[in-house]
């Protein structure tokens, strides 16, 4: 009983750490994005994982806003 529980917890923790590290450099969760598009816009094809990566990269440093803006 105890073991799968612990394994699940470790898996959640490591996902959290990985997601956290990716979000620190502006990369959100692709699975959550794809799931969101499937649920709310079933008629639209979501971006591929690579397209998503480039979209987020541009959004972080990109044009017309100050996101990706570093602190002192």
């Amino acid at each position, binding site marked *: 009983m105890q073991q799968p529980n612990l394994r699940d917890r470790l898996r959640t923790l490591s996902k*959290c750490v*990985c*997601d*956290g*590290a*990716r*979000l*620190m*450099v*502006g*990369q*959100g*969760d*692709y699975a*959550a*994005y*794809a*799931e*969101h*598009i499937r649920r*709310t816009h079933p008629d639209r094809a*979501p971006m591929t*994982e*690579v397209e*998503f*990566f*480039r*979209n*987020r*990269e*541009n*959004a*972080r*440093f*990109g*044009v*017309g*806003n*100050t*996101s*990706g*803006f*570093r*602190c*002192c």
Partner: protein
Amino acid sequence: MGTALGRHGPWALVGALGAAALAIVASQRGETINALWIVVAAVCVYLIAYRYYAKFIADKVMRLDPKRVTPAVRHNDGLDYVPTNRGVLFGHHFAAIAGAGPLVGPVLAAQMGYLPGMLWILAGVVLAGAVQDFMVLFVSMRRDGRSLGELIRAELGTIPGIIALFGTFLIMVILLAVLALIVVKALAESPWGTFTVMSTIPIAMLMGVYSRYIRPGKIGEVSILGFVLLMLAIVAGGSVASSPVWGPAFTFTGPQLCWMLIGYGFVASILPVWLLLAPRDYLSTFLKIGTIVGLALGIAFVAPHMQMPAMTKFVDGTGPVWAGSLFPFLFITIACGAVSGFHALISSGTTPKLIASESDARFIGYGGMLMESFVAIMALVSACVIDPGVYFTMNSPAALIGTTPETAAAAVSKLGFATTPEIITQTAADVGERTIISRAGGAPTLAVGMAHIISSAIGGKAMMAFWYHFAILFEALFILTAVDAGTRACRFMVQDLVALAVPSFKNTTSWGPSIAATAISVGAWGYFLYQGVTDPLGGINTLWPLFGISNQMLAAVALTLCTVVIFKMKRERYAFVTIIPTAWLCLCTLTAGWQKIFSADPKIGFLAHAERYAGAAAEGKILAPAKNADQMSQIILNDRIDAVLAALFIGLVIAIAGFGIAACLKAWRADRWTALETEPRLVAAE
């Protein structure tokens, strides 16, 4: 009664422990104390503040409602607006607010001893810094995650909005200049450091190509690849520095490095982001977090003793590192770490668009800033565990202590911090540098402190040079990332500002306006950088106070906005939460700005300094560092430009405070709620 004891009992113990630690730190006389007491005192203060003051703000001032939908839920698009796990978002927010500021300010402030700096860091963060971050996050979260500029325009009016945009641009310029100056000061005459920092450019480009064409999106593996190459570059740097051919080839003077950085800033900010900026961002972000964690573990395990006295005689303003007395200059020297206006831009940037529930805002906004403050405490500890003689040798300008170990040892000993030429030469040899004299700017001092702490845990003396250059690389890396991301941000601001007059200038995809705006931005910070590099007093002396004033000024602007919002919500009875820090910051920035312009002491006042040079020029004399009459007039012009800049900052604070007071009075007289929040909607019951 029983439950109240259960609820508050453990916190009373935390409070008692914190009070005991503070008492030990403050009552230290003669003997050195263990740095852990400072860490314990800080952590207890943070815990109590988070449990009680932040909760009071959340419950009474903001009335956070977990049932109310956040922008992330309302506008969920899987991209910019995504409800995010609060732990994950905390990491994102902290990585965005933590930079070079909290590392450098406390190091410079250490000239007054560790106690004044420590007390200001703790009081500042609890009552001002964390309040600002949390309040701005709240205000933005209730308004679809809009930016600080938009919020000021909406709640205070168009003119204050434009003033704030212009102010933000000036702050960016000064920030970039001072950051670049820190890098120049750390790399000048240091082939080892210069080689490792330069090698980050090809390493980042290699990573960029890898994640563009070979394995897109695999951030983990490309970062590990980059990290391994970086470590190899540090090791190789040692051989490069000792090589008779390559050593001199990578040895540059301050002005040479200054021109290189200006060129770099221009080119890097128009290159595609995937090639240089994004991959180096991975390295700098992960290295930053890793090093902060490493430093915390190092301090915990090594438990070093503080060598610097609790308070030095320099609280009277006669210190060699920077000029000016404790009030107001300590409070602007330690900006980030206590309160930083820049965070208002982050708290109204990506973070409010990612919050899943309103009740997470306290942890992310208030908690994130407490974490940053903890980084500042660690920087203070690192600066104070090294020999004070070495500290003052590294941070005093050459104009005061000369350039040889003998003159430096004599001058620093005369200041009251005994040292010998042997100690100075030996320290330089330990960290693999030719000299440590007048390495102002904070970064080299911090690197010596970190190398001291980490090498006590791993590697001993033999590894000290490695750790020193690791620390220099870590700082230079994220400063360079900030320089090119900041130049980009500046460029968009210039385009926005010019577009107020010439609308077509806003087109960010066409080359003409982009290059023109980039040139304006780089030229602006490059000017101040060059001025700083050639300053005989080390540049930090002039630029750091200007940076501190501008940063605290932005904080005052952000807190004014928050005060107005509190009045508009008809909760003015709690407005003291933001009025107290706003008033304090206005007092500090206005006094400091006034003294920087009008002080009769040429070390502090720009005009007095200009006067001294003008007087000498009139008599046909040449004062160092000028070598001819042209340079004399250049120095006079620099001083006057600095004075105008300080005057602009003063005007800006007064204008925004005026608009803020007017808006508060209007809201106070109104008989109803006038804040412009987005219509509340409740989370759908599951």
